[in-house]
C-alpha cells in the first residue's frame, strides 16, 4: 500500500483492508460467528478420551521421572491438552503433517501414536519410538507424519515451513501444522519463516501455544507484543486468537484456519491461549507464579472438566465417562509397565543410524 501523508488517510489505513484485501482479523470474524465446533456426542467423547489420555500419561511420566526411570529434561503437557486434541482432530492423518518442539508427548498421543512406544522412549528403552536414542524431546513417527520432537527452541518453525514447502512442491494437498510456544515466538527464525511462508503461499498453520511463560519468564516480561496472533501482520498472515482451554473452540478455529490454508491462500497464525499446570520441565519449581494463579486455572478453565460438563449437560451418562476414565488409566498403566520392563538398547545401537549409507 502506498504511503499516505495525511493524518486522516493514515488513520483510515489502519482500519481498511489493504489493496489485496489483507486483513489481520479476517479469519477472526469468521471464527467469531460460530465459536464452537458442532461435535456429535461420539466426537466429544473421543476428544475427552484423548485429553484424559494425555493427562494421565503425563502424570505417569512425571511419576516415573520421580522414580528415576525417566532422565534428562521432561516437559509435561498437563493443562494444554485441548490444543493438540482440538487442532489435530481437524487434520487428515493421511496427508497432513505435524511438527512441534520439545513438549511433544501430547501431540503424539493426539495423533494416535501408541503410548507404549512413547513411554518406552521416555525410559530410554530399545522398544521406544526412537529406539531409546532420542528421549522425551526427540521423538518422531514417519508412519503418522509426525516430524518431531525438536529440542532447540524455535527450530521446528522453519522445519515445519519446509515440510509445508514439500507438501506444495509435491502437490499432495497436505498441510503442516507447526507448533511453538510463546517463548519460541521471539526467535528470529520464526519471522524468517513467516516471511517465506507468506511469500511462497505455503500450506502451513503456525500455532503459538501461549501458556503464559517462556520457561520462567512471563509473557509480558519478554514480549513487546503479547497478542501473538498479531505477529504475522507484517508478513500479511491473518491471525486467530483462540481460547486454548476449550476443545470445541479450538477445533472450530482449526476448521477456519485449515479451510483458508487448503484453498492455497498461504499460512495462518493461530494463538492458542492456554496454561500449563506443571513447571516448564520436571526440574522447574515454578516459583515465578502464585499457587492461586494455577489453582484458578485448574478450577475454572480446565479443558477436561469443561468437556465433561458439556457431555453431562448433553445427557451422556456419567457411567460412560467413568468407563472411559477407567479404560484410559489401564492404557497408561500398561504403557508404563511396558516401558519399565523393556530392555535397554543393545550396545551395538550406539553406532547405528549415525549415517544412512555406508561409504
Amino acid at each position, binding site marked *: 500500500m502506498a504511503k499516505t501523508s495525511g493524518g486522516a488517510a493514515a488513520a483510515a489505513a489502519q482500519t481498511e483492508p489493504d489493496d489485496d484485501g489483507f486483513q489481520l482479523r479476517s479469519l477472526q470474524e469468521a471464527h467469531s460467528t460460530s465459536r464452537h465446533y458442532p461435535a456429535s456426542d461420539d466426537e466429544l467423547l473421543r476428544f475427552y478420551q484423548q485429553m484424559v489420555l494425555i493427562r494421565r500419561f503425563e502424570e505417569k511420566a512425571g511419576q516415573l521421572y520421580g522414580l528415576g526411570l525417566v532422565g534428562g529434561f521432561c516437559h509435561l503437557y498437563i493443562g494444554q491438552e485441548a490444543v493438540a486434541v482440538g487442532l489435530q482432530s481437524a487434520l487428515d492423518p493421511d496427508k497432513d*503433517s505435524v*511438527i512441534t518442539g520439545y513438549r511433544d508427548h501430547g501431540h503424539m498421543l493426539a495423533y494416535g501414536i501408541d503410548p507404549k512406544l512413547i513411554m518406552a522412549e521416555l525410559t530410554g528403552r530399545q522398544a*521406544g*519410538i*526412537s*529406539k*531409546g*536414542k*532420542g528421549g522425551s524431546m*526427540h*521423538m*518422531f*513417527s*514417519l508412519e503418522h507424519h509426525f*516430524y*518431531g*520432537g*525438536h*529440542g*532447540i527452541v524455535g*527450530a521446528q*518453525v*522453519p*522445519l*515445519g*515451513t*519446509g*515440510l*509445508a*514447502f*514439500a*507438501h506444495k*512442491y*509435491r502437490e499432495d494437498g497436505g498441510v*503442516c501444522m507447526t507448533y511453538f510456544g510463546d517463548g519460541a515466538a521471539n526467535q*528470529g*527464525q520464526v519471522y*524468517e*519463516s513467516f*516471511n*517465506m511462508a507468506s*511469500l511462497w503461499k505455503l500450506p502451513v498453520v503456525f500455532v503459538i501455544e501461549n501458556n503464559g511463560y517462556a520457561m520462567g519468564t512471563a509473557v509480558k516480561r519478554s514480549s513487546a507484543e503479547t497478542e501473538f496472533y498479531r505477529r504475522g501482520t507484517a508478513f500479511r498472515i491473518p491471525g486467530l486468537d483462540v481460547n486454548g482451554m476449550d476443545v470445541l473452540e479450538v477445533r472450530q478455529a482449526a476448521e477456519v484456519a485449515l479451510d483458508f490454508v487448503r484453498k492455497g491462500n498461504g499460512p495462518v497464525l493461530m494463538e492458542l491461549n492456554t496454561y500449563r499446570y506443571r513447571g516448564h520441565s520436571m526440574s522447574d519449581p515454578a516459583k515465578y507464579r502464585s499457587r492461586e494463579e494455577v489453582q484458578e486455572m485448574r478450577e475454572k478453565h480446565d479443558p477436561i472438566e469443561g468437556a465433561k460438563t458439556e457431555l453431562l449437560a448433553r445427557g451422556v451418562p456419567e457411567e460412560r465417562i467413568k468407563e472411559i476414565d477407567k479404560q484410559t488409566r489401564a492404557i497408561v498403566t500398561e504403557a508404563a509397565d511396558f516401558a519399565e520392563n523393556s530392555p535397554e538398547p543393545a550396545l551395538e545401537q550406539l553406532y*547405528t*543410524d*549415525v*549415517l*544412512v*549409507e555406508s*561409504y
Partner: protein
Amino acid sequence: MSLELKMPALSPTMEEGTLAKWLVKEGDEVKSGDILAEIETDKATMEFEAVDEGKIARILVPAGTEGVKVGTVIATITGEDESDNGAPAPAPATAQPPAGTTTEREQKADESAPPAADPKGEQTPAPKKAETGTSQLAAEARPARDPEIPRGTNMATVTVREALRDAMAEEMRRDDRVFVMGEEVAEYQGAYKVTQGLLEEFGPKRVIDTPITEYGFAGIGTGAAMGGLRPIVEFMTFNFAMQAIDHLINSAAKTNYMSGGQMRCPVVFRGPNGAAARVGAQHSQNYAPWYAAVPGLVVIAPYDASDAKGLLKAAIRSDDPVIFLENELVYGRTFELPELDDHVLPIGKARIVREGRDVTIVAYSIAVGLALEAAEQLAGDGIEAEVLDLRTLRPLDREAVLASLARTNRLVIAEEGWPTCSIAAEIMAICMEDGFDFLDAPVLRVCDENVPLPYAANLEKAALIDVPRIVAAVKKVCYR
C-alpha cells in the same frame, strides 16, 4: 592531456575478459556516468562507465577482443581542459567496478588485484601492484588422471563452475525431487554463476530465489528434506552459513540418529568456502574442520572439475545430509572432465593425484593445487612427492592416508585454513595412532597463520599458505 582507460576488474575472480562491445566511438564526447563499453567476465556481461569527462581520443582494443588482461589500456580520453598544466592525470578507473552493478554482498576483491594508480612521472614508494595473498594460491599443475575413469574415455576441458552446474542439472533431470534454493540462484543466475541456466531449464518451482535469510531457508531446506524432497541449498558463501549452523548440525545431522533411523534428511548444503581475495576476515574462512567434526554429516571438499561433478552428483543422491565445500578461487580453473553419461564418484575415498615414493603431501580443496606445484618443484630437487587429495573429509579415508604413509614414511599436510583443531591436526592424530611405526620423521602441517585474515595485501600474503612453505616443510621431513 590524455587519460588512459584500462581494462577494469569487474568480478571477484576476474583476471581477463572479453571486450564485447564499444558503445562510443573515437571523437565522441563523454561525461562521467556514460556507458563506454560492455565487458564480459567469466560470470556476466558488465557495463563499463566513464569516470572522467572528455573526448574519446583512441580506441586501442577493438570490440570482440577476447582475453583482454585486467589493466590493459583499452582507450584514451582527451581531457576537457586541453591546456596541459603538467599535473599528473587523475588515475583512470581501473580499480573500481562500475557503481551499482554489483551487490555489496557479491563485491569481493579480485584474485589478481587491479593495478594501483600509477600516474606517469610520479615517483611513489607504494608497490605498483598490490600482490594479494590469494594470488599465491593459484596453481598451474594439474592432477593426474583418476584411475577410476575408464581408459579411452573422451576428456572435455571445463571449469569447476561448469562441472558443478552440470552435476546439478543432470541430477535435476534424473530426479524431480531435486531442487535448488538460495540467494540469487535463479534470476541472477548465481552470485558466482554456479547455477547459471538452471532457472531457464527447470523453472521457478525448482530453482528458487530466497530472501537473505540463511537461518530460515536452511531450516526450510532441511524440513523439505525431512518431508521427502532432495534440496540443494546454496550458501552464497559458507561464511553466511554460520547464521544457519543450528539447522546444519542440530536439525540435519542428528535427526536420523535421534529418531532411531526413521527420519532421513537428504539435503546438500553447498557453496564457496575458504579464503577469498582481499575481503577481510569475515568473508574468508575455511569451515571444513567445523563440519568434519560432526557425526551425522558427510563433508566433501573437491578440488578439480571431475571430482566436483562426480562427488556433487553422489552427494545429491546420498540419503545423508552433505556439506559440500567449494572454493571461489577454483571456480574458474579448467580441468579435464571425463565425458561419461553418468559420472558419479564414491564418497569417502581419497585419491592419489600424483604418485611419488619419497614423501606424502596430504591436501584437499585449493591446497591440492599448491601441493602439486610444490611436488613439481621438489622433483627438481630429486624429491618425489606423492600428493593425496582427501576429497571427502567426513568420513575420512584413513586407509588411504596410512597406505601412502606406509609407502613414503614421511608426511606433510597442506591446508588452507587455521592450524588449530584442523583437518591437518586430525591427519596427524591418525598418523600417530595407527601409522607410528611407518614414520621416519615427525609429521608436519602447513596451514594459514593463526590469525583472522587481514585485509592489507602484504599481510594477507603473509597469512595464507603458499608453495615455498610446503616445499620447506617437505624438505624438513626429508632431512634435506
